[in-house]
């Protein structure tokens, strides 16, 4: 295979200490993810899917092991280093959308760009491009509560890709959506990986959703199966 890996995970473990007991969320996980893949992450509840996703996205740290994304060892970055890295390199899509209620669709999508050096004109261009990509160019001025769930999630996807990151991670992005909206959202994620070459990692419970991906892996009690 000539396609380079974007994510390299080696012997990764995550343990939570809860009083006396140790909870092992991830146990010795090793995984390579190639650029442009649409990887779906499946497994029963509590199997460590979210934990793995958070570590790849640089919002959680492993107890042991290595997680390299684009040749950067995330465990070596300090907190503000991680914050900058996240801003420039990952887009995050949540199950609960997590749009800022007091900001319009446009302002929500613009948020990550406020941390860059882009001027207002360039920011506007990029926000427009992102909103067009998810088919919501006409809804710029709407507040989240004036949008349907599916539209909210599409705005969230626009926010995730507005900084043009290589990696987009999504934790059960269709978990709160009806099947039509879910289809739309999954279609967009698939398009991002197929046509624009983004690497998409998506956690899902739904095999039909997983069918949109290019590869599927399973977690069970913190370990990769099959």
């Amino acid at each position: 295979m000539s396609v380079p890996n974007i994510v390299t995970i080696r012997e990764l473990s995550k343990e939570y200490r809860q009083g006396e007991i140790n909870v092992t969320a991830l146990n010795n996980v090793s995984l390579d993810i190639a650029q442009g893949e649409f990887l779906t992450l499946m497994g029963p509840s509590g199997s460590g899917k979210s934990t793995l996703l958070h570590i790849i996205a640089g919002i959680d740290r492993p107890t042991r092991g290595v997680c390299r994304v684009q040749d950067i060892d995330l465990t070596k970055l300090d907190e503000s280093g991680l914050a900058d890295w996240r801003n420039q390199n990952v887009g995050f899509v949540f199950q609960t959308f997590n749009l800022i209620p007091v900001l319009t669709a446009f302002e929500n999508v613009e948020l990550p760009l406020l941390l860059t050096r882009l001027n207002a004109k360039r920011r506007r261009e990029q926000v427009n491009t992102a909103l067009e990509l998810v088919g919501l160019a006409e809804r710029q001025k709407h507040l989240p509560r004036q949008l349907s769930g599916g539209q909210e999630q599409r705005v969230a996807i626009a926010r995730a890709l507005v900084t043009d990151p290589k990696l987009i991670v999504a934790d059960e992005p269709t978990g709160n959506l009806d099947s039509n909206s879910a289809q739309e959202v999954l279609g967009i994620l698939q398009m991002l990986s197929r046509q624009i070459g983004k690497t998409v990692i998506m956690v899902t419970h739904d095999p039909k959703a997983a069918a949109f991906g290019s590869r599927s892996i399973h977690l069970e009690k913190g370990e990769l199966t099959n």
Partner: protein
Amino acid sequence: MALPLRYSFRNVLIRWRSTFATVLGIALVVFVFVLLQSLAAGIEKSSGNTGDPRNIMIVRKGSTAESASLISRENLREIQYFEEIARNDRGEPIISADVLVLVNLPRSDGSGEANVLLRGVSPRGVELRPQVRLVAGRWFTPGKREIVVSSRMANRFANFGIGQSFKAGTANFIVVGWLDGGGSAFDSECWMDADECRSVFERDLYSSFLVRPVDESAATKFLERIEADRRFKLKAEKEVEYYRKQTMTAAPIKWLGGFLAIMMSVGAVFAAMNTMYASIGARTREIGTLRVLGFRRRSVVLALLIEGALLALIGGIVGCGVAYLWNGYTTATMGFETFSEIVFEFTVTPRLMAEGLIFAVLVGLLGSFLPSVRASRLPVIAALKSV
């Protein structure tokens, strides 16, 4: 880079129901602060800006106030011919020998009586005080029991309307006019003819002389001459100087204002803190999301502090606005020197308003400090998982 200001601003507005009580509380603190300080400013202004820089005031040596001073008619006869004193176009020396009498008059609202300062003023006395204007009626006629009252006291005392009459001492006076002292001490006085005043109240002596010297060097010479002449036992000083010393200290009111404001602001700080804790607590996941997007802890803290400050600023603006309604409102207090009624205006200066707003912002910052820091301390992952 920081979060946009509109983020903080809209968060204040969107939660207006729950923040309303806090805004009101802060408004109240600022209102009390600004109002009491404006009261103090008004009291200080009431006597502080009296006097004409060209005039010289003469009282008895050892008297701290005009009303407690006694000067003989012989002194007047002698001094009026001093060549340092300017003369008007009829050739008369510009000197006014005044008599001050305290009279007890009934209030218009029937709530009792109060002392009023009655000034018997010689014909030149009106010319010497150009800041005192007649705003209604006419001046008194010498030799008649006519009186001109301060327009600002007109509704505070019974029978002060033009054409009405009231009894003072043994005589009945008819009100013929209203004067306006332009915010000076004369706003708290009633004026009548000096000789008539002396005869009605059986005063053989004058209280003070007010003199207009020819020029600045004559003024200096005149001051020296009065001071040097042992026979007079008089004290001469510039009129403005005299009134500057008479300026009533409003320190107790300022002190009370500051004390009340500080006590109340403790409550306001806790109210703001409570509001911010609730508001931020409901937004934990939102704050986690902002941090996922790459915003630093300090950006989050800053946005939340600005939010608290804005919240308080709205309260401050309301408080200042309501306090400003009192600006120019005339009220009265008892003077410490004469125990007579001193009228003055609430004076809400721009400086006071600025102080009130700064005060409000400080309350807001203080109240939002702990909630903001606590919210930003939470690890991103914990914030995201909160519901």
